[in-house]
């Protein structure tokens, strides 16, 4: 009895030490897999918005991801529905479709068909219109919009300005 309770105590004591060790190691392992600070810090890109031609899709790069920039034609701007206006980004007096160019399904880059003014994702057949809304599943929602801040004619990607914050709050983008 005396003996076994002493062993019991030793077992529990070891269990406690091992438990602390296991939790500590798991934390260290999880943190080691986190993105490095250098990766997180390199997350800003500045675009000059005055150089884009109308009606042509230009692809920029931010955090390694393609960013779609489409300066809308007067015709497009005039035809915008309410939900399309909600995604519209205005810089000076130009209107833009700005989006992370990755399919919201599983992340392929959809191709833009200028004649049909729409995007087709070759991976699983998803489709989007020129305003960035989804028109055919499997993608669950329109293109995500990267955090942006407008400063005069410049746009800083990676920083959340008031226009972006408003879109996020109203659920236009994630």
């Amino acid at each position: 009895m005396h003996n076994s309770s002493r062993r019991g105590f030793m077992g529990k004591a070891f269990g406690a030490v091992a438990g602390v060790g296991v939790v500590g190691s798991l934390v260290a392992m999880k943190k080691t897999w986190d993105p490095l600070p250098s990766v997180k810090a390199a997350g800003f890109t500045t675009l000059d918005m005055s150089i884009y031609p109308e009606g042509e899709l230009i692809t920029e790069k931010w955090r390694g991801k393609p960013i779609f920039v489409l300066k809308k034609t007067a015709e497009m701007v005039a035809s915008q529905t309410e939900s399309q206006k909600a995604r519209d980004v205005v810089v000076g007096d130009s209107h833009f479709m700005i989006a992370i160019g990755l399919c919201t399904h599983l992340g392929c880059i959809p191709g833009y068909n200028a004649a049909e003014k729409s995007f087709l994702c070759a991976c699983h057949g998803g489709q989007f219109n020129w305003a960035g809304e989804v028109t055919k599943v499997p993608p669950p929602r329109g293109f995500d919009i990267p955090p942006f801040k407008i400063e005069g004619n410049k746009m800083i990607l990676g920083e959340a300005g008031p226009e972006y914050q408003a879109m996020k709050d109203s659920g236009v983008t994630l």
Partner: protein
Amino acid sequence: MAHFTKATSVKDWLNQRLAIEKVEKVMASEYWIPKNINFLWAMGMVLAITFTLLLVSGIFLLMYYQPDVKDAFYSVNYTIMRDVDFGWLWRHIHGVAASVVFLIIYIHMFTGIYYGSYKKGREMIWISGMLLFVTFSAEAFSGYMLPWGQMSYWAGMVITNIFSLGGLHMDGLVEWIRGDYVPAQAFLTRFFMLHVLLLPLAIMGLIGLHFAALRIPHVNNQDGEEIDFDAESKKYLAGDKAGSKVMRFANDFMSKDMMVVGIYLIFFFYLVFFQYGFALDPVNFDPADGLKTPAHIYPEWYFLWSYEILRPFSVNIGLMAFGFAQVIFMLLPWLDRSPNAVPASRRGAFSIWFWLLLIDMIVLTAMGKLPPEGIFSTIGLVAALAFIVLWIALPFITMNEKKA
């Protein structure tokens, strides 16, 4: 005991220290195998040999491969393929074996399903086998990342995105897995680690478990007959070799096994030398480019069936169907409600179920390769639904099965 005498031979010296004679008996000459089996029972050995080929060729590739986003593509496509003497041989062996191993795994699995070798004490064999399948899949995927070509990059992108779990938007988890916003250096190095160390270790451990799980129930046989291994082995040892229903693992069964292995190896090296193209995707001979998706993204052939189950649905339902396909095989021993462990051909409705499942998976595989348009989309959707319906129907089909 710990009492040692002067050794009379090297064998005796080892025997006193390592009991090698006893080990040999337990592992080989008195490990009993039923006689009533066919060449399909050699697939396990074929798999073990193929794994060895992967391990050996991998060790040689490892000596020149550079896990760096700037150099990886070059180190594989130029250094290994052109500069290193016989470098191409290791790469062809590794690529062909990675593809063929799945063909053999599928044959091995469907043999198990056909003969009911997953029930009556063989559940752990089945579960450890499915864990091997899952680990092999992860091993194949991580290896596919290493040449850092277009398919590596985009497969890496799409597959890691699955972990955002659709409507749950776990983007933080995806970035954690990648160590970056997109697949980049951190991603490549960690998948390199998984491919050359952690997953092979897990595979070797699981192969050990798989063999241990075979030990007590022994392998099944062509009639699903319950053999009294004690009685039959006594008969054999008493000299009635012809009357006994069992034989020694070594050298008797091994000699048959190695016959099949020999034929397999001739076929295998024919592929390595003359038909290796199927194992190396042409799109992956373009270096990774994060700003250009290839026109068609499809996984290697052995993942196509489960990919096709993901594809026709909206994202959340697709992920649920995909998750279902990943775990459902694991549950087979419990979804099959019939106690009959006999060949499918003697099990009535189950036999139809077996062939439908096999055909459905072949259809899914074919559709997964084709672009998701028009009639192919429809066939893919029907086949994906059929897969789910078949598995849901299984308990009901087998519940009322007559005693065979």
